[in-house]
Every structure is written in structure tokens, then in C-alpha cells.
């Protein structure tokens, strides 16, 4: 594990306060009834989302997403000359994705250096976007996608994928379609769509059947699943139902994304060509 020697570090061992708090029995989810934020179970009831494009003026394209308390920002740079010349395919461009959590994004402080979990998530973001970008139109060049999670209140990966594809569209990178992400948390027989952080973590504690989470990235225009990742134990039928629920969730988010893009295009000013 490499350490950052230039930074003044805290003591070797420190603990988050939350570890000493007596835990009331909120870690296990209420088995039925409404969820903590008033949404109901088993319904494709995604959190209201706030989306905006073009916040970062230096970047080619950028996007910001806020869903509940989950907040993330994404910037796209490029196409620019490739840095790694060794294995580049000359006919095709390359996409690089990087997803990071701010150290203060989660209840417990995280490290500055990218951990293996973040690398795994970066890979997932990359694989979800790769099939959507027309890379053959960008020979000899690379496109960088950077996602920063400012506040993690659940479903960070799903929103990161949405945010990244939005930033790519804002950057004017040619794509076969927009990619949207949605996740569910399976809790026994019912599912919770777009789970909050508490709902996401609650699963590790309970030991019943069908406890797991699932993230799907989906291209609504092409009806294609570009990314899929599940965790925890789920029966095959439950899994299939979960995928369907996620797809439905993506369709629900699609108009919101479209509106944000319309606003971005309109806001940038009139067309250069007289029409």
C-alpha cells in the first residue's frame, strides 16, 4: 500500500466515532411498510434527481447529479493524444474511466489514495460506457472520464454511470446512446429501488435469504444492458426480476436526463449556422 509522504497524516490508528455509539436496531431494515424516506417497497420509486451539465468550464464536458443525499460530479477531458503508445490500437480511440470517493463522502473517512474497491468501480463505469461510445471516430486519441463522489448516500455506482454518460454527451463525444444506471437492494421477497446508504449497508447484517444488491446500466434507446453487477445472495428468478426493475427505473430517469441535456444545449447559445 503506497502512502502519500507529502501529506501530514493523522495518528496511525484512529477510529470513527460511530463505532462507539450504541447501535439502535436500525441496521436491519423494517421488513415491511414504507421506507425511511417515505418511498414504498416493490415499486419503481426512484429518488428525485437534480441534474445539470457544464459546471466545470475547464473540462470538455461535465455533469453533476444529486439524488437524495448522493451527490457526484463528473468531468470529461479529450479527445487528446494518447499517453500510452505501447498497446494502442491505431484505428480506435481509448476510453479511460476513474471513479473516486471524496474522503468525507462516506460516514467513515476514507483514504485519499484510490483503493481496490474504487478501482473495481472504475472498471465497472468503464465497461458500462465503452459499448456506448463511438470510439472508432476518435483514432489515436484518448478520452478521460473522471467521476468524483462528493457525498455517498447509496447507489453511487448507478448514479456515477448516469453522470458519466451525461458528461460525455455534454462534451460532444459521439455515442450510440445514453447510458443510465439504476440499482436495487433485494431484501427478502421485496426490493428497494435506488437504496440509500443505510439501506445498502443493512444487508450485510441480516442473514435471511435473498439479501443482495444489483446495479444495472442500460441504454434505453438501444434496449441493451451494458453493465451488470450483483452482490450478495439472490435466487436466479429474483435476480431476473431485479434486472427488470432496474431497467424500468432507467426508463423513469431518462426524461430527467433528456431535460438536462436540452437545457445545456439551449443554454450554450444559438446555433452558429443560420437556419
Amino acid at each position, binding site marked *: 500500500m503506497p502512502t502519500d509522504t507529502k501529506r501530514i497524516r493523522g495518528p496511525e490508528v484512529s477510529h470513527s466515532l460511530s463505532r462507539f455509539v450504541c447501535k439502535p436496531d436500525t441496521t436491519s431494515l423494517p421488513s415491511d411498510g414504507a421506507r425511511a424516506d417515505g418511498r414504498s417497497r416493490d415499486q419503481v420509486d426512484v429518488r428525485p434527481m437534480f441534474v445539470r451539465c457544464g459546471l466545470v468550464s475547464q473540462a470538455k464536458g461535465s455533469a453533476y447529479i444529486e439524488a437524495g443525499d448522493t451527490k457526484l460530479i463528473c468531468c470529461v477531458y*479529450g*479527445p487528446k493524444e494518447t499517453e500510452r*503508445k505501447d498497446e494502442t490500437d491505431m484505428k480506435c480511440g481509448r476510453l479511460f474511466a476513474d471513479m473516486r470517493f471524496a474522503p468525507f463522502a462516506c460516514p467513515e473517512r476514507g483514504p485519499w489514495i484510490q483503493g481496490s474497491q474504487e478501482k473495481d468501480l472504475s472498471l465497472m463505469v468503464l465497461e458500462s460506457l465503452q459499448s456506448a461510445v463511438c470510439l472508432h471516430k476518435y483514432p489515436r486519441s484518448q478520452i478521460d472520464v473522471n467521476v468524483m463522489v462528493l457525498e455517498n448516500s447509496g447507489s453511487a455506482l448507478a448514479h456515477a454511470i448516469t453522470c458519466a454518460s451525461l458528461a460525455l454527451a*455534454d462534451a460532444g463525444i459521439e455515442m*450510440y446512446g445514453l447510458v443510465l444506471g439504476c440499482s436495487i437492494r433485494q431484501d427478502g421477497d421485496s426490493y428497494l429501488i435506488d437504496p440509500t446508504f443505510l439501506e445498502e449497508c443493512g444487508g450485510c447484517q441480516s442473514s435471511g435469504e435473498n439479501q443482495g444488491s444489483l446495479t444495472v446500466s442500460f441504454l434505453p*434507446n438501444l434496449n441493451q444492458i451494458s453493465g451488470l453487477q450483483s452482490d450478495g445472495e439472490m435466487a436466479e428468478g429474483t435476480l431476473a426480476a431485479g434486472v427488470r426493475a432496474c431497467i424500468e427505473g432507467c426508463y423513469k430517469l431518462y426524461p430527467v436526463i433528456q431535460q438536462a*441535456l436540452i437545457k445545456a444545449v439551449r443554454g*450554450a447559445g*444559438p*446555433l452558429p449556422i443560420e437556419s
Partner: protein
Amino acid sequence: MSPMKMCFPGDKLCSIDDCKPGTGVHMRHSVIYSSLVGYVLKKNEGEELPVISVVRETEAKLLPDVGAIVTCKVTSINPRFAKVHILYVGSTPLKDRFRGTIRKEDVRATEKDKVETFKSFRPGDIVLAKVISLGDVQSNYLLTTAENELGVVVAHSEAGGQMVPISWSEMQCPHTHAKELRKVARVQPEYLHA
């Protein structure tokens, strides 16, 4: 603002029988789809099918392509080639720097074997060139100036003055009247831009 149709990546625009694909679109199964967020633009160009493209206010096409005329700045020279940074493609400024190479053989069309790079370019010159290849793994973009219209357009003398062209191979400093050798371009009006 005119109520122009807005489209998103992956939106179906029309069949290939109705329109010809322009920029910002892609084709699949003989149907044209949008690949950008922007306005749908149909342009009639004479007798043929109209060209359909998706445009935005920001210019999307930003990569040097084979055959494109580029404006570049010479960064270094050696007896075999000159290294340049590509600054513009057509009249679009590039956001990121792309590196290119003008080999000795590609400087002019005639008497290729007698070309000497330091008599054609100097570091700091602004050169119009054409992309001939995207290059391979080791090399950068390969450029050529082997046309009358291509070559040095802006150059500074040793004294620092901006030189004026006096022939296809010479430029003169307005202050010292010293002559320096360059591969000078006969600038065409359509390539002129700010």
C-alpha cells in the same frame, strides 16, 4: 429561436434512402441514428439526397483527419524532419495539443532529395500543412507541405520582426532587410482566418 428538432444520442433520425449521413450521426441496419445531443439539420446540396447531420453550437469535429488542412507551429527541427504542434484543424482551434512531424521528403513536391529542413522551417514558424497519415505506434501525425498553397505563413526574423514573403523560398525582415530561407506558402483566401 427557431423550433428546431432536438435529438439525443441513439435517436432514430431517418432511413438511409431519405438522407445522406453527415456529421454527428451513425448508421446501423441502413437507418441513420443521432450520436450527439443537438439540433437536427437537413441541408439540400443540389440534386442529390439532402445531408442530415446533428450539430451543436460547439464544434464537435476536433481530430486531425487524413486530408485535413491544419495550422501548426514548428517546435524543433533536425536534418531529417521538423516537429510541430497542431493548433488548428481547418478553422477550428484544438483544445489539446497534438504533435505532428513533417519529414524532409514531404516539404516540397519537386527536388525532394535536395531539401534541407533548416532552409525550409525554423522553430516558432506558423505552417499550413496537410495530414497525410495518422502515423503508426511510434510516430505522430505525418504532415506534408508539398503544395504551393502550403508552407510557412508567419515567420519571425532573427531580429524579431515579422517577415514578409518575397518569393516561394525567401522571406525578408522589414527592419533589417535580411533575407531568410523558408518554404513559403501562397496563402489562398479560403484558408485565411483570424
